[in-house]
């Protein structure tokens, strides 16, 4: 890859880049919205569903404690899922575009 200026408009318009853009946008924002909603369920639940949070499930462990712990597990799962999809799908797609960048855009 040369350091010369690329034809960015051509790369942006390329079908492969558009496909990467489409997939990435949909995946990232869906994951982002899910994580934010799941996070805010905790303070909302603690404030407005106190009776539910108090229900004992396992010895002294109640729904509230399990829900708070699940926040950690869900955060880690999101990170794991993202890392997997990014390295298996997005990285190869981006690498393909980088490899052909010269041919698609060419030095101006």
């Amino acid at each position, binding site marked *: *890859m040369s*350091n010369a200026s*690329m034809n*960015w*408009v051509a*790369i*942006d318009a390329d079908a492969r*880049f558009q496909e*990467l*853009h489409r997939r*990435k946008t949909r995946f*990232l924002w869906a*994951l*982002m919205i899910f*994580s*934010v909603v799941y*996070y*805010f369920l*905790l*303070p*909302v639940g*603690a*404030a*407005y569903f*106190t009776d539910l*949070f*108090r229900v*004992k499930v*396992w*010895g*002294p*462990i*109640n729904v*509230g*404690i399990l829900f*708070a*712990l699940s*926040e*950690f597990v869900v*955060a*880690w799962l*999101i*990170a*794991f899922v*993202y*890392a997997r999809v*990014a*390295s298996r799908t997005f*990285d190869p797609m*981006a690498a393909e*575009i*980088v490899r052909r*960048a010269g041919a698609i855009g060419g030095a101006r």
Partner: protein
Amino acid sequence: MSAPRLLGGLTAVALATTSIPAFAIFKGGAVPERFGWLAVVVFAAIIAVTMYVTYLAAKRVKTTQQFYAAGRSVSGLQNGWAIAGDYLSAASFLGIAGLISLYGYDGFMYSVGWLVAYITVLLVIAEPCRNIGKYTLGDILAFRNQHKTAKTMAAISTITVSTFYLTAQMVGGGVLVKTLIGIDYEVSVIVVGILMLAYVVFGGMVATTWVQIIKAILLVMASILLVIFTWAPYGFSLPGFLDGVAGDVKVQAQVARLLGDAATNMTPEQLGQRFLEPGLYLKNPIDQISLGMALVLGTAGMPHILMRFFTVPSAQQARVSVIWAMAIIGGFYVLTLFIGNGAALNVGAAQISAIDKGGNMAGPLLAQYIGGGADSMLGNLFLAFVAAVAFATIVAVVAGLVLASASAMSHDIWVGVVKGEHATQEEEVRAARVSAVIVGALAIVIGIAAKGQNVAHLVALAFAVAASSNLPCVLLTLYWKRCNTGGIVLGMLVGAFSAIALVMVSPNMTYPKLEKEKAQQVIDGAAAKAATLEADMAAATDPAARTKLEGDLANVRKDADGAQATMQRFEGTDTSIVGLEKPLIQLRNPGLYSIPLGFLCVILGSLFWRDRKAEEMWDELYVRQNTGIHAEQAVAH
């Protein structure tokens, strides 16, 4: 004078200020005076190791890429630990364990947002920023905007956010070191300042990274040890451990005290179980959500966190580093659940809040208990170790903040704006070192000047400002074609000022009139209470009951004296520093209003001041952030 020689001199000064006079001034801390030497040994060991690392780093740091970004040769795993070291401040290490020890469930719930924040960083910030950025927030914002304006705005914002955070760290650190080992507040602020300056000035990002890694490893090790010893008596059973917590008399007494009259009809079992349910500390859910928004969006806008992503060789390594950081930070918060509850169970809320009202001493006191108590050698060695870790924690966080501010001053303002990007490597590194000295000196001055001020809300404010100004600008620059200089300027200014202004009129400020009214009530009530207690005492025949009544009476008198002192302190003033008698809003966290306002202003500003160049540059920015074409490369070495 050569850098290594000067460094050696500084090490000697830092060691001398902590160790030699320390024997004489180790008074009134959590570490008993006769065990003060233990603390000195552990502190000196940590200082010596970090100084040696700085000495090694100083030999490598010659170029701007080394100084600002550690040559982009930090691995994802290393950077993950460094992010954890940069992020887990004393507030999270000691503060959250303390909240759990005093308020149970709510303290644990509070810790969740600090981890969830990294999802935003991972999904939408880390990789694009690594692909298009160079060293600072200013580089990202200047990519397709008016260069000088964007750099100036980014630098001002970086310095503002870092200063709020820095002030909280310096003051909190000074108080903490004093409470832990009893050395003077001013001395500990100066020692923190000198150490942090040595790391940053000589070792730049290389030394800062290693200091943060060392600190994070120490912190996690200390926490794991505490948890193993706390949990082992319960056979590592979670229900068993929590049964122990709920069944403890000290825990039940704390819940009864927190609930007041509402606890009269509750059985001891109910009181204990209540500790594991929400609502003992966080009373206002809207405030909670507002804080949550600031955390989830603010972390991604923190300049010192953003800067860490320029130290890795590629966007993939930036991703790996966030994954590691999330594993370490999340794991650490799960450990604090045990540390906090363990302290509530073994030490007791009464003893924890007797040393520090905010509960900051929960972790250290638990360490002392586990080692064998206040009179044992091992107990005090554990305590000294945890104290030293807390100290390393403050220094590492402060170093990251100073480096971020210094980079904004030298790279964005001096080179980017004043010199018009024409400076040699040598000139820029020198400018960065001078900037670090200026910022560091200011931090020490601010730390000493703010002695005794309530600065706890400044951490939340730093996150709120970052979420309301930096994050909307970065996010829309990266993902919205029409975003431009006008939007950045308007968004930065309105976002930051609205967050600060909302806090200025919030209940976080001190309102002398309200304080005096509260104090007056205490004084009025105390006389009647004291009279009843005295009558009871005259009637009491049982010696145990008499002792209890005497204790209650002493407490009533102490409260009355405290109230009297409040009356005197606020004599002649009725209004807060902005001239209000009572808060205008009830929210303590401004994010709920200021974050949407920040986003709105970036959008409105961009639409109002159209800029063809920013739109023409969009294709380049968008392709580069997604593919990493032309991204800054690592140096070979």
